[in-house]
C-alpha cells in the first residue's frame, strides 16, 4: 500500500513539472504496467503498449487530481490501450480471414518459442475476466482497486475473478482429452 501512496505522491509532483519525479514515477510503475499489458494483450506487444500507455498518461498528468491512486489511474489507461489493441486485432482478423471469429485473440500473435505459457492461458479468457484476474492475481491489487482499474463495481470484480478461475480450472480438466496445445496448457497449471 505504501508503494501506491508513494506513486501517487510522485504523480502529483510530476504533474507540477518536477521532471525527476516524473522519471521516478515511470521507473516505479513500469514493471507493473508492462506485466499488465503483457497479460492482457501478449508479451510480444507489451513494450509498445506500455510505451503508448505512458505517452497517453504523461500529457494528462495535469488532469490527475490525486483523489484516486496513481496506480489504478495508470492501469486503467493501460487497460484502454490494450482494449484498443485487441479491437484492432479482431478487426484485422475479420478483414483478412472472416471466419476465424472463434479463435482466441491470442492466436493472432503466435508465441515465437511455440510454447504455451500461463500468459497464453490468460489469453483464452474473456477479456473482462482476464483483466480482473490479472489485476488481482498477477499485480496483487485489491478488489476495490481492481474495480477502479476496470471501471466496474467491486461485486463485478468478485464475479469475474471467480469465473476466470472456473475457466482456468476447465482448461486444465480439458487438457486430458483436447488438442496437444490444450493438454500442454493443462500441464502448465497442474504440474
Amino acid at each position, binding site marked *: 500500500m505504501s508503494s501506491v501512496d508513494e506513486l501517487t505522491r510522485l504523480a502529483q509532483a510530476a504533474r507540477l513539472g518536477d*521532471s*525527476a519525479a516524473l522519471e521516478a514515477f515511470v*521507473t516505479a510503475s513500469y514493471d507493473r504496467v508492462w*506485466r499488465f499489458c503483457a497479460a492482457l494483450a501478449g508479451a510480444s506487444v507489451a513494450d509498445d503498449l506500455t510505451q503508448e500507455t505512458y*505517452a497517453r498518461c504523461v500529457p494528462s498528468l*495535469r488532469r490527475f487530481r490525486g483523489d484516486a491512486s496513481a496506480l489504478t489511474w495508470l492501469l486503467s489507461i493501460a487497460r484502454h490501450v490494450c482494449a484498443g489493441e485487441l479491437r484492432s486485432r479482431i478487426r484485422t482478423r475479420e478483414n483478412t480471414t472472416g471466419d476465424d471469429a472463434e479463435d482466441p485473440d491470442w492466436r493472432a500473435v503466435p508465441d515465437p518459442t511455440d510454447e504455451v505459457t500461463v500468459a497464453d492461458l490468460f489469453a483464452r479468457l474473456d477479456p473482462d475476466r482476464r483483466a480482473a484476474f490479472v489485476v488481482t*492475481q498477477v499485480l496483487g491489487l485489491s*478488489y476495490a482497486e481492481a474495480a477502479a482499474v476496470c471501471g466496474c463495481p467491486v461485486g463485478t470484480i468478485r464475479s469475474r475473478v471467480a469465473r476466470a*478461475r472456473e475457466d482456468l480450472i476447465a482448461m*486444465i480438466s480439458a487438457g486430458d482429452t483436447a488438442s496437444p496445445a490444450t493438454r500442454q496448457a493443462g500441464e502448465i497449471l497442474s504440474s
Partner: protein
Amino acid sequence: MECDRAREAISARIDGEDPGLPGSALDAHLASCAQCRDWQQRAHEVTRRARLGGPFLERDLTAQVLAATPPSRAGLPRLTGGAGMAKRGGLIAVALAQLAITVPLLILGHDHGAGTHAAHELGSFDLALAIAFGVGAIRPALSAGLAWPCGVAAAGLVVTAVADLIGGQTIGADEAQHLIAVAGAALLFWQARTIRSGAAGAAMETSRSWAVSPPGGQRAAGQVAFLLPETPPEPSGDGSDAARSTGPDVAARDGGKVA
C-alpha cells in the same frame, strides 16, 4: 446454496476479500458439497500457478519510454521570464494603442476623408486587430495562429500606405498609426517562434537528462544501451560483444560531456 454463488465466495476468500455471503453459510455448503470442495482445491492450485507464472518483464525500457514521452505541459516554457514578459507586455501596449485609434472610427464614425459607414467598417477591422494582440498577450500559446492574419493585415496597411503616400493621397502623420499593427504582428511572430523553439529545446533537454542524469554509472550505461539500436536477445558472437562494449563507452562519453 447454488454452487455458482459458493464458488464466487470461495474465490473471494482465496484473495482475502469479502466473500459476499456469511462465512458460516459457505462452510456449511462446503461440508455438504464434494464438488465445491474439489473446486476449492483446484482454485487454490490455479491461483498459485497463475501468480508465479505470470508474464515477467525481461528488459526495462523505462528510458525509451521517457525519451519518447511528450514533454508535459508543465515542461513547456512558461514565458514568465524577462524576455517572455517583455513580449507580452509589448503586446498589451500595442493592443491598447490599437484600441485607442479604434474609438474615433467605431464610435464617433469619422476618419479623415472616409464616410461614416466606411469609418465603422475600418473601426471593426482595427478592433479585431486590437483583440488579437490582447489575446496574444494573455494566451501566448495561440500566437502562431494569430500571427498570420495579423501579419497579412499589417503588411497590407503598410504597402497601401506607402503607395498612397507616393501618390499623394494621404499624409505621413495619418499613416504612422499603422506602425502599431506592424509592431503587434511582429511581436506575435516573435512570440510564436520563441514558443516553438522553446518546446523543442525542452523536449531535447528532457530526453537528454533522462539518458545521463542518474549518478550511478551502471544505470546510465543501461539506459544509453536502450537508446542504441536493438541488441540481439541472445548475446553470441562479435556483434553483441561490440554492442555490449559500446554501452558504457557512450555513457562515459555523454557523462563526461555533461559534467
